[in-house]
């Protein structure tokens, strides 16, 4: 992870101090979106497991709600195809 950031930093520096390489920027966009989705799923997931522990019927609802933030990553992936 750290090395990857270093690489990214080098790329950015070589390109003149800003992130001008479109591919690298797209990768960063997807990565950050995935991080955001992961953080959102952390809270929803633990709440869903809590609700399921009380009532088994909530399994389907819990599953759906847990993976909803995944759409952010899918939308971010669109960026990869555009650049």
């Amino acid at each position, binding site marked *: 992870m750290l090395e990857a950031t270093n690489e990214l930093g080098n790329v950015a520096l070589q390109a003149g101090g800003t992130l001008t390489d479109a591919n690298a920027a797209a990768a960063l966009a997807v990565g950050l979106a995935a991080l955001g989705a992961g953080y959102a799923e952390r*809270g*929803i997931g*633990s*709440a*869903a*497991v*809590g*609700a399921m*522990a*009380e*009532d088994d019927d909530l399994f389907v609802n819990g599953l759906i709600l847990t993976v909803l933030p995944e759409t952010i990553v899918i939308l971010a992936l669109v960026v990869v195809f555009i650049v």
Partner: protein
Amino acid sequence: MSAVGSSNPEYVVARVRARRGSLYGDEEYRKLTRMGPSEIARFMEESSYGADINALGSRHGGVDLIEYALNRNLAEQFDDILDWSEGSLYDLIARYLRKFDAWNVKTVIRGAYTDADQSAIETDLIRAGEFDDRRVRRLLEADSIDAVVEVLEDTIYGDPLREAYAEYEETDVLVPLENAVDRAFYERLLSGLGGDEPTRQYEAFLKAEVDFRNAINALRLARSGADIDPAAYFIEGGDLFTRGSLARLARNLDDLVEYIADSQYGEELGPALRELEEADSLIAFEHATDAALLAYGDRLGTIHPVSVTPVISYILAKEREVENIRAIARGKEAGLSADEIESELVIT
């Protein structure tokens, strides 16, 4: 589980909300007030109290069965909540639930004082606090107050109890010991609370509770006219009273009622205060403080959905339910009519 790690309000709140849904509503209470003790037990058996009624059904009967089943269920539910929560959430919840530890310590001390049977004391304990089974067992095995104080040496009650014990030995009354336990609990309740918004609201709630307790104590003292120093019963931490103002106000009932009516709680407690002046009924005032706390707790639980406040809101609602069912059962045993019992209930 413990106070280490990051807090996990999402999980605890989800579980607690599900449990809150199964609490009794108006409809159930109306049914319960028209039942006899054995019918109430049967009604409870079919709801979330089933396991407790079945576990205790062979040993107890009638209203005792209801009472012990309620205590057991309460203890289990609150133990569960403490089990689930981690980090700062655990700390915030444990603060409030330590009141059951204080209750247990007082029960054990009273039991040791009156030489009560060990099993008789055990049935009156509510194992909802932070003390584990081992400590509770050691408390039960302690056959003198001295031994009880020794068992509690390494807890927050250790030092205050040790000091109060010297006073107890001189006077042979339990008041200093019980005051020491209460004060140790209330001191820990409000010390070092964190700074985020839900915690501040929680703190406001705890302060209201301390204020109400002070107000009830002062009203009792003012009404009885007994020659007791009100400052000795003062609990620190509230907004409404200071040690000096409580001591002054407790001498005159009218001043005290006026002071409470003018305070920030005046709106919620106003009708009860008028009733207090007219009918001289302290019970109505106590119910009004309970209802105000419960209403505040309900509101508390909806503003910050992912924080400690919904958990506290559930704990309050559950406590209230247990007290309501107990009031119904005891009222039925004493032969009160359904209307009289309904006036005893606190429902929001």
